[in-house]
């Protein structure tokens, strides 16, 4: 009996030890990022490193917005991510419904092709196409290419959700004389609202995070935040404070969303294994 308890205790100890080992790299990384962004330049380049900002300063954040046009890039990112997510929901939710109802697993596999193809491979022809159409320098090419990320995420998550819904309510509506479109809009969509939420959050996050399309297609005034923050690196290689502050500004919305919506995000990711780009 004592041996059994000893083993349980050891198991408990091993578990907590494992969790600490696994989680601490993430904790350390994000705390260090925060620390860099709140320190002045002297402390940031000190050796041995200063860990706790004393006193903490917000000048790095002010710097980022004053020296670079970060407000504009933020607006660009918001426009691109919201448009790409909105359009993806508009097209992807009905598509997910259609594929789930028609049990078209082959069509679902086609969606996966978008997941397998590297982002760069769309970009050579699309870059030329947008150039011919004179669209380089506007946000339209970015919204269009971001659909490559957002549409498959929405369709994939929605297929899973609609398959999980019981069909009886829609069938009752059909028996009562509703068209399939009405049954979809008035019965299935309200029931699938949690799924739509998951699809929306994931699609927004992966569009927001996307770098590769922006780096090729964005001009000076149409940079999204990830491209803008990369440019801060190339021009101010030495000042770590503003660089860390800029990095934090870019990723803060996503981190907050993850912390607030962790249940939805975990549910969506577990089901689909989705990731953009």
């Amino acid at each position: 009996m004592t041996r059994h308890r000893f083993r349980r205790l050891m198991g408990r100890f091993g578990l907590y030890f494992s969790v600490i080992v696994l989680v601490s790299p993430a904790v350390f990384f994000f705390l260090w990022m925060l620390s860099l962004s709140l320190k002045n330049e002297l402390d940031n380049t000190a050796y041995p490193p200063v860990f706790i900002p004393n006193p903490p300063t917000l000048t790095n954040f002010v710097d980022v917005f004053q020296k670079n046009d970060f407000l504009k890039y933020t607006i660009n990112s918001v426009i691109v991510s919201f448009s790409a997510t909105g359009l993806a929901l508009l097209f992807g939710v009905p598509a997910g419904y259609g594929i789930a109802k028609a049990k078209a697993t082959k069509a679902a596999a086609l969606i996966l092709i978008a997941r397998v193809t590297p982002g760069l491979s769309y970009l050579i022809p699309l870059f030329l196409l947008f150039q011919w159409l004179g669209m380089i320098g506007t946000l339209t090419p970015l919204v269009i290419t971001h659909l490559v990320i957002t549409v498959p995420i929405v369709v994939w998550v929605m297929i899973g959700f609609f398959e999980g819904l019981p069909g009886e309510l829609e069938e009752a509506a059909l028996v009562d004389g509703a068209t399939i479109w009405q049954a979809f809009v008035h019965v299935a969509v309200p029931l699938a609202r949690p799924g739509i939420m998951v699809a929306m959050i994931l699609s927004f996050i992966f569009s927001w995070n996307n770098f590769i399309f922006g780096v090729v297609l964005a001009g000076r005034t149409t940079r999204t935040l990830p491209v803008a923050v990369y440019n801060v690196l190339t021009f101010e290689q030495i000042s770590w404070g503003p660089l860390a502050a800029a990095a934090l500004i870019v990723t803060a919305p996503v981190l907050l969303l993850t912390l607030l919506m962790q249940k939805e995000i975990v549910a969506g990711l577990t089901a689909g294994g989705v990731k953009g780009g």
Partner: protein
Amino acid sequence: MAQPRGRAYARHYWAFAVPAATIVLLVILFPWAFTIFMSLHDWKVTGATPFVGAANYLKMLQDARFLWAILRTLYFTAATVIAPMILGIWAAVCFATQFKLRGLARTVFVLPMMATPVAIALVWTMMFHPQLGVLNYLLTSMGLPPSTWVYDSSTVIPTLVMVETWQWTPLVMLIVLGGIASLPQEPYEAAILDGASVWQMFRHITLPLVWPFIMVAAVIRLIDALKTFDTIYVITLGGPGTSSETINIMLYQTAFAYYDLGYGSAIVVVFFLLILAISLLLLRIRQREAWR
């Protein structure tokens, strides 16, 4: 009554998928067709674009830089699949057990894969600084020799692998955790009665039962690993020299730094076939496992 009715409607449901299918066709299939067309031409951004047949593909065979990029990609991919798989399965087993603050710990653990890759890569770059970086400080304060991290061709790929592992282990964990959550409890209860150890239960119950989920995670990780771009581009841009240049980075350089779009397109075609072949191979292995 409802059953035949539902089936009669089945073909109407196709209409729901038409708009999304149109977008996929326009944004994915058009570029594909056009890429293959371009790969058969000597295509620079300006000037004439003469038809050259398979010349771009033949050039690849003699291009040492390209062949090295393939080997490097395979090496980088193998490492960035294996390390996250092992750590991810370990993490999934831990997070499947109840403990205090589990929800918080899991959320923090998932943060690296949700955070913007460019922002993450920039902070890593600062941490890798050979003189002022915090990582070398940590190493030396633990009595270990400092590392050259991404500033030497012998350590650059292992360092990038570390960053990718840090970032993508959570995805493996989530998929495997989903698998563990769906397992029945009875085998574990019986095993505990028989006095099985934690390791024995993992080895003989958990591992075989969640194997399909592990394979799904492996395929997804494999595809992502082959396509890695943001981390390498931001931290090293393929350097020092070309010592961390994978196919995806070389592709970017060829097409958008040297503007050799024809050769770039040919690389895209070969790269895509490589991804497809490797993923199909892994799926095939999975299917054979399922037959047993």
